[in-house]
């Protein structure tokens, strides 16, 4: 019976509406409880900030394209490798950390759950092998559906029920968590070297549009009542003027109502919005359209978003948006990796240097922060870097600094080479909003947990929830220099994962008890869909159907979320 009590901290918990009151948090057998016996181990948090463990809703941290990023960038590990210690394995990689470093770095920042944002179904085993080797944090993975032949064929004929049955089958086969969509239709077009740059461009041969794919997948998602909403990376990522495509895509949600047993009130998650909020029609007149996009997001209540903040680092971009990565390598001429995956998807990888001396990069940096600062409902906007695309997740503390300190933002802007041009093209310089710790807890804990349909176990400190707790050397009653904010959130004073201390004074003390989250969905027998699946494996896949399913021995401590969609 392990008992702990975290005493006298300033507690921030949106789930219970606690806004920095001095309070104790009691823990018993891995769960948060009302109170514990006098024998409980006392953790003194006086003068410190206490929050639930943070929840990462969108990062590329496990799987084939991530590993391409590691293996093809030895220079990303040169001179920065962290040696092994008694408790921890050796850990390396700046923009694409090894699995061990991924677990350790998230934990050190107080993150205890993370979602891999794009799992190619055919490579699901690889994703789960990496998840197994990522210590401490609970993880799930989103299989990609937006360019899947089955999905496009069913939705073209308006067969929502069949699409849903296929989704259920694929989630079970790949041990996946949610319905992910990346550049709907555009990635299939890329198999012929083409793309879909608006939501109405027809997909070659399949004769369906991105709009139809997204609408159909939202309907199928709600037909099944999955814990998370459809999670979409829209068409035309990274192009000047793409904010209109973004608004067109978001508006598709207006017709859809949430249906689930997980307390989720949204039907669409729009990811790394920074990359989709661009004005202008070329890199010369490139400008921020964050206001236009956030005005819509703020009033459309059934949407959640994440920011995709640019951190101004040298990083490694990687996405299932194959045509985008080809476009990027044509711009920066850096090494280009691409994989097209039969019947399902594709992925590309290209290193990218976000330089504070380049106007476009400065503007991108501003847009990411603007999206967070223009947010009205902090339960629907989440902080991400689309790791590693806009920057490594290890920069979250720096983003928090920029969001919590107008002074820190000003210092950055003043240091820019093109600050005047950047100010003209953005709104950030005129914003004095400083994020509160409560809003931070909403955007990094309670919000993402709710969007994922996990608000009963993650993202809060209410009795009965998992004892995932982060304590920061940050006294809300004191003034802080910008860099003190970054320091406090970089190395937590104390982190507990499911009742086990994993970080003390910023150092890893345990490899924890990580779990793998996946969604097990029951649907009615569907002979037609099963026939279609057998047929496609026979004719078009390069593996047999019996060698596709991810066996249970690939999952460590599976945490299965049951969904009953039988009608």
């Amino acid at each position, binding site marked *: 019976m392990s008992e702990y009590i975290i005493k006298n901290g300033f507690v921030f918990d949106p789930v219970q509406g606690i806004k920095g009151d001095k309070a104790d948090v009691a823990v018993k057998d891995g769960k948060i409880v009302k109170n514990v016996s006098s024998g409980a181990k006392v953790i003194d948090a006086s003068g410190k900030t206490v929050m639930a463990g943070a929840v990462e809703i969108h990062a590329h941290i496990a799987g084939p394209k*991530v590993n391409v990023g590691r*293996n093809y960038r030895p220079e990303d590990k040169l001179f920065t490798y962290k040696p092994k210690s008694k408790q921890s394995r050796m850990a390396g990689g700046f923009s694409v950390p090894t699995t061990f470093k991924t677990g350790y770095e998230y934990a050190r920042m107080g993150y205890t759950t993370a979602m891999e944002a794009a799992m190619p179904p055919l490579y699901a*085993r690889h994703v789960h092998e990496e998840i197994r*080797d990522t210590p401490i944090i609970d993880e799930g993975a989103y299989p990609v559906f937006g360019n899947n032949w089955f999905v496009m064929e069913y939705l073209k004929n308006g067969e929502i029920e069949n699409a849903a049955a296929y989704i259920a089958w694929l989630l079970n086969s790949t041990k996946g968590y949610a319905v992910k969509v990346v550049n709907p239709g555009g990635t299939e077009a890329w198999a012929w070297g083409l793309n879909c740059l608006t939501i109405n461009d027809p997909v070659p041969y399949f004769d369906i549009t991105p709009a139809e794919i997204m609408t159909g997948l939202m309907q199928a998602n709600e037909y099944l009542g999955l814990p998370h909403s459809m999670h979409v990376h829209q068409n035309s990522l990274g192009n000047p003027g793409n904010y209109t495509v973004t608004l067109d895509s978001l508006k598709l949600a207006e017709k859809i109502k949430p249906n689930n047993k997980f307390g989720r009130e949204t039907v669409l998650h729009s990811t790394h919005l920074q990359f989709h909020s661009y004005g202008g029609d070329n890199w010369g007149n490139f400008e921020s359209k964050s206001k236009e996009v956030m005005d819509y997001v703020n009033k459309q209540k059934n949407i959640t978003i994440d920011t995709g903040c640019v951190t101004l680092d040298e990083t490694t971009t990687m996405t299932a948006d194959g045509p985008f990565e080809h476009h990027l390598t044509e711009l920066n001429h850096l090494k280009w990796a691409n*994989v097209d995956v039969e019947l399902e998807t594709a992925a590309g990888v290209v290193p990218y240097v976000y330089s504070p001396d380049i106007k476009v990069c400065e503007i991108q940096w501003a847009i990411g922060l603007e999206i967070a600062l223009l947010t009205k409902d902090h339960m629907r906007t989440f902080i991400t870097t689309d790791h590693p695309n806009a920057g490594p997740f290890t920069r979250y503390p720096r983003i928090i600094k920029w969001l919590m300190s107008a002074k820190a933002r000003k210092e950055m802007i003043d240091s820019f080479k093109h600050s005047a041009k950047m100010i003209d093209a953005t709104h950030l310089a005129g914003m004095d909003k400083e994020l509160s710790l409560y809003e931070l807890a909403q955007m990094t804990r309670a919000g993402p947990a709710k969007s994922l349909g996990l608000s009963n176990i993650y993202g809060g400190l209410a009795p009965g929830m998992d004892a995932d707790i982060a304590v920061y050397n940050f006294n809300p009653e004191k003034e802080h220099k910008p860099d003190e904010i970054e320091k406090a959130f970089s190395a937590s004073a104390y982190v507990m994962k499911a009742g086990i201390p994993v970080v003390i004074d910023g150092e890893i003390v345990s490899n924890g008890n990580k779990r793998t989250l996946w969604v097990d969905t029951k649907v009615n027998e569907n002979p037609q869909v099963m026939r279609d699946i057998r047929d496609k494996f026979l004719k*078009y896949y390069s593996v047999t159907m019996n060698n596709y399913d991810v066996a249970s021995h690939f999952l460590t401590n599976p945490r299965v979320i049951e969904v009953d969609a039988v009608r």
Partner: protein
Amino acid sequence: MTKTVTDVVCPFCGTLCDDLEVVVSDDGKTIVDIYNACVIGAEKFMHAQAKDRVTRPRMQQPDGSYKEVSYDEAVEYTAQMLAKAKKPLMYGWSSTSCEAQSVGHEIAEKVGAIVDNTATVCHGTTLIAVQDVGIPSCTLGEIKNRADRIIFWGCNPAHAHPRHQSRYSIFPRGFFTNKGHKNRKVIVVDPRNTATAKMADYHFQIEQGRDFELLSAFRVAIRGEWLPDTVAGIPKERIYEAADVLKSGRFGIIFFGMGVTQTLSKNHNIDNAIMLTKDLNDYTKFSIMAMRGHYNVTGSGQVLGWQFGFPFCVDLSRGFARYNPGETSSNDLLVRGEVDAVFVLGSDPGAHFPISSVKKISQLPSVCVDPHITPTSEISKLHVPVAFVGVEVGGNCYRMDNVPIDARKVVDPPEGVLTDEEFLTRVNTRVDELMEAK
């Protein structure tokens, strides 16, 4: 009565065929028949059945002969050797499962070893090229379903990957290629008139060692620039013609093998082939793929990648991972005398390294873990026989296109024979005790 195991994964080459059917006796001990396998794959399953198979570890005696020892003694010798050495080389890893590789890496991290796999003599130079310029590629099913232009450059699948052409490349009928072979134009570049070349629409019998020049010439031709009259023995007219054939396709693929990775220029050959592929994507869709040899050499690169960040030649000696082929690569380490012990699992350097490297292994404390008797086992101080992965024990493997497939067990190993993973796990435990004592 017999029973048939279906969807069996073939543990021979990187093609990793997963449609084999193996008929086994109902006691599950003997293989009666094998369907769908190539002759090499079939032989691999049959050899597991060999009556004269070694089933206990053997220790080399002063006179060079071998004496049977227990697995306990084998574990002790191996753990002692690794714990004593200042810089042991742990080589191989390509004919075993990812699960076994993982345990091996734990040991390597503890003893500060260098972990290298057979890519070091196969596609290591490909991995270097990918690090320099990336690689646009695809899964094998994409080729089956879409490809209408296929180049085999310095590879001979008819001999090295026998079912490749029928399953994935030349012959299969796919979604957009329902005429199979008729949909495709095949180009072979090889200094010999190989069995594969005989199936091609175009064979460029290149002057050996001039691949880098010919690849450059293809790139020049794609851009329509000036060329000298002949390059690598090929007249420029044929090069311009080939460039047009490549540009006019809808979906093309370049397969390449050891004909370019082991030939002068090495990584630069692959580098230029990748850049040719990238150039072609300005005109149509093109991919490139390495014809990986061992059935799980790709998996070794993947596991090393997510655990340490490098696909081979991983030097853990200083408590953190470093990488630089030319220094941390097996043959350079051996020839230069940089290592003081050698552990080999799932490979046969005795047969496949130049003799100068083999001599060094024979002079060092050495352990060879292998189901077979091999030149390596017969010069190592200790030979540890183990079960055949993919025949007698399952485990995850990665195909040449990095697609992971979980290999199946079809029969039991001989009485008392350990698997790679079991042996490594016992060594790992013993190493813990020894390092603790230090």
